């Protein structure tokens, strides 16, 4: 059923055209990478702060309000370009375990960010970083690293 859908998407006229174009796929892949820089920067800003590094003189909640806005923008870019990249070779990714690992980690980290991480950030007093803050930062960084590694891995021939 899902495989049928992947096949249908991959061989629909717009995606056939995108695959045939020598410029479209590289450009979309490049924009996807630029999104990585924005997502990476905004995640690091808050997670480093929770670890007592980076901008440690700023209150976490204030920093996070700003950083999360950029995280959202970066994610919009990454997800929309990511969907296009997926649709180009949907049936290939369907069979790659790492693709599903990446998707699971992505869902997990987004859910974690808007629930546990957000609650900890809002309740954070600033100053000395609490153990819970450090733990949240480590979980967040580990999940994002899994997403990124999965992304690199599924691109290998």
């Amino acid at each position, binding site marked *: 059923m899902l495989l049928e859908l992947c096949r249908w998407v991959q061989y629909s006229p717009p995606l056939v055209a995108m695959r045939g174009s*020598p410029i479209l796929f*590289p450009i979309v*892949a*490049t924009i996807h*990478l*630029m999104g*990585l*820089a*924005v*997502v*990476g*920067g*905004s*995640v*690091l*800003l808050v997670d*480093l702060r929770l670890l007592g590094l*980076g*901008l*440690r*003189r*700023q209150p976490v909640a*204030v*920093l996070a309000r*700003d950083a999360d806005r*950029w995280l959202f923008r970066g994610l919009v870019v990454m997800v929309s370009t990511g969907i296009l990249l997926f649709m180009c070779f949907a049936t290939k990714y369907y069979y790659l375990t790492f693709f599903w690992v990446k998707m699971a980690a992505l869902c997990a980290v987004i859910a974690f960010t808007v629930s546990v991480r957000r609650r900890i950030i809002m309740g954070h007093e600033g100053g000395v970083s609490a153990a819970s803050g450090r733990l949240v930062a480590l979980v967040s960084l580990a999940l*994002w*690293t899994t997403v*990124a*590694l999965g992304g*690199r*891995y599924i691109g*290998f021939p």
Partner: protein
Amino acid sequence: MSLFRLCEWLANTSGSIALHESRYVFLVVLTVHVLTLAVFAGTAVMIDLRLLGVAMMRVPASEVIGRLLPWSGAGLLVMMTSGALLFYAAPLARYENVFFRMKMAALALALLNVWLFQRTVYRRVGEWDADAVPPGAVRVAGGLSLLLWAFIITTGRMMAYQDYWFN
């Protein structure tokens, strides 16, 4: 010795051949190079956004730069080291790659931009440190930096298409 000769000599060293023919080491180095982008370009972009006056506007610019630049610098070091290894794995292919040449030229310009920024407007950071939107010259440096890193990411990604497009 010409650059071409140098690359030719480098390509015939045993280390280069080993790296070129390795099954996993090359892919590991490539993965490190791409993923460190999130640390290096990530922190650099955040600094540039502050210089443009569109992010962390209430944090003094000198604090953003002072606290994030070490992370950016460490990321750059990993990028340069892994990048040098990727070059070493196939010196002649890199030398002939149009996108690689453009990338190196843009990298030189980006580093020059950082150097000029430190030598000029950043000397007087006290005058604009707390400004939500810094003066024009600072915004130009930040914007230029963003454009150059974007160009470097683009040409880096396009290196894979040299054969596809030109050979």
